[in-house]
Structure formats: C-alpha cells, structure tokens
C-alpha cells in the first residue's frame, strides 16, 4: 500500500498534554481517580465491620479516629468520591444505551456529576446537623 502512513506516523492515543482541558475529559479522569480512592474506602469499610465484630475493646481503637479532623476529612472525601462515582457511573450507564453522547449533552452531564460531588457531602452534613 504505497502512501499508507508508516506505523509510527499513525495517530496514537490522545495524549493529555495536547488537548484543551474540558469537562468531559475531567469527568473521565475523575471517574478513575474516585474509583481508586473508593478502593481504599472499601478496604477501610471492611476493617470497620471486622473491628465491630471483634468486640468493644478492638472497636475502641478505631472509633476515636472518626471524630478527629483527619477522620472527618477522610469521611467527607469518601462521600464526595462516592457521589461523583455514582453520578458519573449513572452517566455511563445512560451512555451505554446510546443516549446523551452529543458533545453538548455529555458536557452538561459531566458538569452535573462534578457539581453533585460537591453538593452531596454538604447535603449529608446538613442532613446530619440540622435534619432528622
């Protein structure tokens, strides 16, 4: 095939550095990022269950951390990561049906997922502080 591009000249994976930053790109990266964070959260969640089953003395070793500034920060970030991964995961389930894939729709839903991640932990904090 004369004139066909040699393998090394072919377009390759879109390197992040040559693209203008936009919401759909951020949403994709954040999905992986929050997923990896939630991997750690699920490990902590399992340890929490095992500590509760191990009895009061064992549980007393982890319980004080929940109310410290770093414990609260970690819990806050876990809720934010979960909210983001949830919203963006639903976005991807909608994509799987073939809907919402136009640039405008994908951009809007990406912003929605990002804003939901900011709003959800604030909403949960408000519910715990002022509600029920």
């Amino acid at each position: 095939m004369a004139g066909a591009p040699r393998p090394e000249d072919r377009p390759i994976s879109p390197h992040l550095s040559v693209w203008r930053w936009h919401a759909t790109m951020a949403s994709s990266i954040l999905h992986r990022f929050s997923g990896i964070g939630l991997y750690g959260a699920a490990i902590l969640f399992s340890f929490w269950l095992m500590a509760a089953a191990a009895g009061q003395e064992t549980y007393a070793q982890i319980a004080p951390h929940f109310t410290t500034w770093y414990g609260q920060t970690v819990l806050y970030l876990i809720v934010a990561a979960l909210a983001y991964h949830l919203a963006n995961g639903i976005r991807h389930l909608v994509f799987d049906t073939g809907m919402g894939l136009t640039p405008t729709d994908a951009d809007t839903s990406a912003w929605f997922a990002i804003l939901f991640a900011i709003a959800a932990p604030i909403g949960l904090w408000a519910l715990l502080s002022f509600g029920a």
Partner: protein
Amino acid sequence: MSGPTTRMRSALGRVRHHGASGEGTGHFIAIRWTSIALALLAPWFVVSASLAIRDGGYLATIDFLSDPFNAVGVILLVIASLYHMSLGMQEVILDYIHRPFTKVALLLINAGVPLVLGAGAVFAVLSLNFGV
C-alpha cells in the same frame, strides 16, 4: 498457504478461544450489574448508616448492624462493592502497567485482597448477628 476464500473454517471458528482472555463480554456485564446494585446500595448505606451511627460509637454501630434488613443490605454492599472495585482496578492495571511481572503480581493482589476482605467482612456481619 490457502487464502481466506478457500479456507474451510468459518470466521467464528477461527477466532474462538483466541480472545485476549477468553472471557468475552463477561467483564463488561459484571461491571454493569454490580454498578446498578451499588447505585441503590451505596446511597442507602451512606444515608441510613450516618443517620443511625453519627459519631461512629460502638453501641450505635452494633445496633445498626444487628437489624436484619441492615445486615443483609451491608452483606450485599460488601459483595457488590468489592467485586466491582476488583473489576475496575483490573482495568486500570491492564491500562497502565505493562511490565509483565509487575502486571501479573498486581492482578493477583487485586484478585486476592477483595476476596479476603469480603470473606472477613461478611463473616463479621454474620458473627455480629449469630455469634457469641
């Protein structure tokens, strides 16, 4: 060598059992059904557990996990989340880790850790309810 036109084997016959992993769309489908389960289980757990437990105290935690509805929900959450995160991390490892030994080692850890944590966490919830 005979060309494609004279070959006796069908196209399907030639590609069968030669896929990247031999598991076809199983991975894709497993990610989807666990994500749908988690879209229901994770928000339920975050809201109801944080309302019931608040400061992470021992008695409130035991109270929450002793309720049969909560116990079943938490066990389902453990299974769905650990399976989902293992599938997701597998994708991340295959995307970014290319050195054969490191890749296989990480894939084995990623298969084993969620399994061990899952067994421990499910046993913890069961022993909280039925144990001594």
